[in-house]
């Protein structure tokens, strides 16, 4: 949560980080939110955040991250090669697999037959990019607006460590999530809204677990943790006043509370008291602002139609995509959508079809919608999951059915907006879509690139914890911004 509170928390943290050498200038920057807005070059104000950020003028003001939980099959969606039709049914050669460790789920198989996608692919856009035309017809329509990266890789091959790694930069629990780093570094552009929101949609396949740590703040202050916006009940937990106690009544109560707290301030002179008064006021404003944002009644029909029929269903990915755009307009810095159900160990052909029915049109619609509004220029959009899937069949390969196990050595994601090249492909894998042969992108590089778009040097966004200058991209390995995909 990154509500700017004028004196207390930020100052304490700031002093802690910077030792005793705090200059008056730095403090005044911290206390004067307007300075940050102008540094971003936009009209949006900024509240909170670090005075040193942005480190350089960024392209993005915000990020929308469509996270596909479970590990979508790169082979069946983007990373296609016609030669795979010939490889279909053949045994995965040892020369390709090398010593790759397999998960406990398929390591016991004595045969590893390769499976070509059981779908039609087509070439789309100016650069004739391969996309699964059965499953992703709408995404195929926006290939000229996005960069598809086919060479992501991660060390983890199981869900919990992998999803923790990509969201927090570490396989171990306890580290802050990408969004909480952004909240900590950049603050928010709308103090009446959480700066980092998370929305979850269910999907139709095997649901792997999610964890609060994926949007948690780890060792950063708790106010930077992602706030779950919910489709049923209250959009934000505890947002609604109790039944029978309306907004006017609450206003009156808060006025009295404020008066009483001011008396208390007179007694103890604790700036924390003033901060508390303003937090109660922020809560009151948030109660007004958030429900309006969640209400899509006012959206014109042509916009709703863009996102597809599921947009009418609260809690659907389509609805969440539309809401994401509305949040983006209102200055929410980081919006993360989790769509569950991509873990297709068996019956992949039917299950991936269902998943794509849910996400293809809305994801493409979000890009088009942002583009039409001129917002794609300063909004970074990311699409992808925690890893890819194996070329070989998990379980029995039949004429029309098979599964695929987890695969971390390569997988595909796409990005758009905020200066990311339009109509571009990056990275290459071998014929089996098993190993990277050109331009590997580690998830650390991905995260460094996301920060770069926001004007943050990933090496400089640090927080001292347990003796180390902790970073999203890790204190050890070097991460690289993927310059080649930036226009």
């Amino acid at each position: 949560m990154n509500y700017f509170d004028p004196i207390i928390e930020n100052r304490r943290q700031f002093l802690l980080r910077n030792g005793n050498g705090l200059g008056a200038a730095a403090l005044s920057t911290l206390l004067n939110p307007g300075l940050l807005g102008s540094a971003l070059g936009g009209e949006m104000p900024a509240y909170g955040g670090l005075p040193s950020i942005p480190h350089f003028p960024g392209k993005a003001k915000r990020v929308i991250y469509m996270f596909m939980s479970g590990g979508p099959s790169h082979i069946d969606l983007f990373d296609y090669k016609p030669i795979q039709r010939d490889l279909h049914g053949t045994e995965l050669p040892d020369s390709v697999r090398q010593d790759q460790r397999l998960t406990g789920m398929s390591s016991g198989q004595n045969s590893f037959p390769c499976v070509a996608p059981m779908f039609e692919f087509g070439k789309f856009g100016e650069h004739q990019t391969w996309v699964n035309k059965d499953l992703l017809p709408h995404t195929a329509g926006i290939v000229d607006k996005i960069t598809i990266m086919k060479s992501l890789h991660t060390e983890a091959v199981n869900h919990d460590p992998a999803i923790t790694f990509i969201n927090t930069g570490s396989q171990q629990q306890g580290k802050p999530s990408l969004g909480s780093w952004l909240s900590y570094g950049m603050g928010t552009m709308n103090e009446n809204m959480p700066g980092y929101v998370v929305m979850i949609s269910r999907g139709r396949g095997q649901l792997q677990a999610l964890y609060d740590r994926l949007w948690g703040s780890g060792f950063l202050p708790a106010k930077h943790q992602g706030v779950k916006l919910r489709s049923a009940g209250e959009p934000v937990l505890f947002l609604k006043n109790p039944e029978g106690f309306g907004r006017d009544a609450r206003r009156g109560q808060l006025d009295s509370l404020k008066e009483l707290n001011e008396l208390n301030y007179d007694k103890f002179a604790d700036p924390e008291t003033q901060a508390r008064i303003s937090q109660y006021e922020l809560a009151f404003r948030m109660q007004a602002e958030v429900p309006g944002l969640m209400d899509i009644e006012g959206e014109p029909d042509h916009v709703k139609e863009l996102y597809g029929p599921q947009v009418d269903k609260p809690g659907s990915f389509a609805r969440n995509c539309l809401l994401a755009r509305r949040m983006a307009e209102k200055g929410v810095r980081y919006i993360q959508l989790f769509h569950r159900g991509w873990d297709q160990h068996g019956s992949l052909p039917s299950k991936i079809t269902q998943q794509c029915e849910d996400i293809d049109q809305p994801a493409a619609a979000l890009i088009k919608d942002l583009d039409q509004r001129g917002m794609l220029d300063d909004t970074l959009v990311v699409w992808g999951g925690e890893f890819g899937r194996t070329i070989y069949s998990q379980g029995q390969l039949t004429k029309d059915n098979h599964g695929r196990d987890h695969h971390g050595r390569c997988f595909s994601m796409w990005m758009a907006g905020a200066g990311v090249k339009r109509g571009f492909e990056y990275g290459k894998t071998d014929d089996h879509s098993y190993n990277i042969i050109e331009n590997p992108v580690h998830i650390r590089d991905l995260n460094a690139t996301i920060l770069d778009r926001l004007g943050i040097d990933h090496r400089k966004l640090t927080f001292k914890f347990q003796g180390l200058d902790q970073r999203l991209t890790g204190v050890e390995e070097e991460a690289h911004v993927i310059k080649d995909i930036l226009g």
Partner: protein
Amino acid sequence: MRALGPLAHEISLVLRGLNETHMKELFTIALLTGSLPLLAVDFNRDVRPILSDTCFKCHGPGKAEGDLRLDDREDALDAGVLSPGNVEKSEVVARLKSDDPEELMPPPDAHKTLTPEQIQILETWIAEGAVYDEHWSLVPAKRDVTIKSLDHFIDKRLAEEELKPTPEADQRTLIRRVTLDLTGLPPTPEEVEAFVKDSSPEAYGKLVDRLLASEHYGERMALAWMDAARYGDTSVMHADGPRDMWPWRDWVIKAYNTNMPFDQFTVEQLAGDLIPNATVSQKIASGFNRNHATSDEGGAFPEELRVEYVADRVQTTANVWMGLTMECSQCHDHKYDPISQKEYFQFFAYFNNTTDPGMQTRDGNQAPVVEVPDEARTARLAELHKQIEDSEQKLEAHRANSATTPEFAAWLKQVEEGASIDGQEKQPAGLVHWFPIEASAQDFRDGVSGSTVTAEKGKFEVADREGSEVLKLNGNTQFKTDAPVNLEYNKPFSFSVWLKPDGKASGAIFSRMDDKAAYRGFDLWMEGGRIGTHIVNTWQENALKVVSTDSLAPGKWQHLVLSYDGSHKAAGVKIYLDGKLSSNEVQADSLSATIATSEPFRIGSRSTGSNWKGELGELRIYDRVLEGADVGAASKGDPVKSILTTPAGQRSESDRRVLLARYLGTADQIFKKLGEARQKVLKQHADLDRKPVTSMVMQDNPDNKMRMTYILERGAYDSPRKDQALQPGVPKALPPMPANAPANRLGLANWLIAPNHPLTARVAVNRYWMIFFGEGLVRSVGDFGAQGTSPTHPELLDWLALDFVESDWDVKRMIKQLVSSNAYQRSSRLESLHRDRDSENELLARAPRFRLQGEFIRDQALAISGLLNPEIGGAGVKPYQPVNIWNEVSLNGGLRYPQDKGEKLYRRSMYTYWKRSSPMPNMLIFDAPSREKCVIQRQRTNTPLQALVTLNDPQFVEAGRAFAQRILQSAETDPDKRIDLGYRLATARPAAQREIEILTKLLEENRARFRENPESAKQFLATGESPRDESIDAIEHAAWTVVAQTILNLDESLTRN
């Protein structure tokens, strides 16, 4: 940073002529005696933090770029970059100031810049001789024994800084402060008044003693420890399934309440299992290092996980007891502190020999565990057992009576009239047990004896066989019955049953067998599709085993008859598959004694497993050999019909019992009710009995199966450097392990509490200091290394640490000492001078003022409102939580939060069930850590979401309602006095006139509002499950609820003043 005055320069000039040892001694004397003001550069306080933060990463313990180390004086001198006493000749300084980016240090890409002030410090330090001191926290503590009070140190610093402390806080503030600090609950108005009235000098001391004797003290201290110990009620990774570690939590509460010395507290938690003749309690304590996250993820690599668990134990133990960030050296030598990677893995070796596996369960406790004696549970089981016996007696009595009742006779007459069968359905005689499933699929009992069949594991599930209901066994389910299935080795018997195996896997289809007593008993056994039986006195020497050579086909209904002629011989067993006699394979043929056992007859398994998977119907047992036409006849037809068509005079005793059982099972309502009552208590007993309470514990492999420890290359589990096996050991920079100490965790624990250990006591007292002063004397409470902060009052820290050791680690004594200090008892008012000179309150001229931690905010609301259930200890509870929080994130999305009812909604927050992948939101919002990892120091933030919790969370809305009710039910009738009472309850002080005015206005506004819309008052009062006193006018109650809620939300209420 302290100004370096001219005096420092003079001192350095004087000292320049002396050699370094002398210099150091002189400085030490000066520091210890306090005879000189602290103006010189102190290496540990001033220089080391700069070097550590900006230089050590490349020129430190872990790395020596350009062959230079700056953490070691000899190294730095040898490299020629330091010239003691000569700043100009010292290249270190030149590099810091260089304009050439190639020369500049730290290099630009390190993103570290030194301030001119920091460079100045380094210059002064070099000018003064570039003296190195060992890092302060690794040097044994020293103290001046003549000093008797901790305030001496605080006051001395304040005097030096010419800062006047605030006066003592008033008594009301004081009692609320110390009560919240020591128990996490507010004082009652009676306690406040008693304290205010007591003007004796001992009043405060008595108050502290009373609070330290309260059982809530143990809870309060345990809560802080739960963060450090990463306590949770779930396993964290992947499915994040449930576990029971609350007996460990109970142990901690009790340890604090009985004032267990900290050394014992340490040894039992780190090595309780290794203490000779360890008690159950000591084993439970060792669960400290089983609290870490574990995984059950199907595809995971067990060894990778296991190494992760060990690494977590190393990290937590080092953080908690030594304030060392040892985890940094898992992959490489520590960059800042003297811990090499090899030393890390020597330390790791202490924890690397445990028996718990990498892949752990997602449901309950993973072995090794210890069964927790639970008197309440034992008593309850006995009580239930008695109830079962009672219900059985009632059933039996009813059964015995029923045989002669007119109702039975009438029923029999009626069914006999309608009965007819064709010849084929005529049933074989000798039926002694029969387990049909009634069409209702509710009832499952022995159709002959009437004994009930109970699910022992899994659920009662039915399937279908040609229109009749059959039993489904999923490979885990098993049933037991008290039916007297008494077969003997020297008497004939036969089994008849319909089977549809799920596959060819082996298992016991039914049995009466005691696995633990050499398998005494019998079973019907499937083995790779083949069918057989074990008839056993003592496996394998006195037993019979026969298996058919023909197999059952999976997924298909087939009928089986197995007969035994009582001859003790394998040849006496005949097996018919679908009526066809199979040839047999004899695997044991030496039976010559009884097979009787006290185990019950089971369907689906033996006594400890061997569960069978498949479907089963019409299980019948006969007391004779079935052969010829009987084999086919047993496969079809209804025994009841068959008996009914037998003339009454020709019916056997067994026949009459079957008829009575059918009557009782289908037509007798009283029997049904009695049966249901019995079922209910049986189930309660089974539920409680099935899960003895256990707690996970540490356990090492025996000496001859010790796991070897190696350095793991870059910390990776699959890259051990097998050329060198490591023995357990401790880092060289710390005191050596005594030669005779055992090379295990017990040795390690004793090493930690040795009086000469420089870290343990300092770290412990610093943590207590943090609890009562908001921050530690060392503010980086979890890091006493070079990158941590120096103590604000180093001599005080040492004084306390040694005092703690010398008091035999008396925790209550130490805490009493802290809260009895003047520094603790001061007013927290922030004077402008203090704000300007010491905004962070390092000097403690005022008492710290901070928001209560989330748990205490909730506990306080419950206490003030009178809702609090003060029960101590036990399993986690599930109070109100917004809907769908769990299913939204859970594996497969199906995990609902089963909210508790009644008293459990009002337990203290430390008992709230802690699901670590999705912790209680109203606590997370108040900075509670997820506890997936050890957390020593909580954040303390101030956010609008917190306001939403205390305004709108049903728990708090209900507390407001109950608080209002408490006020309205009190003896006070005057509105002003009522507001005053509210203040006294929440803030321990009377309300001021202005406050009464503000709240009176609020009260009147709300009265008017609710009067206008009485329905809204009712809605507002409907939140929460506790009943409302309906005699209170709803409008009045609602208006007062607004006032009560406002008082609960006061900054003053939320704050420890």
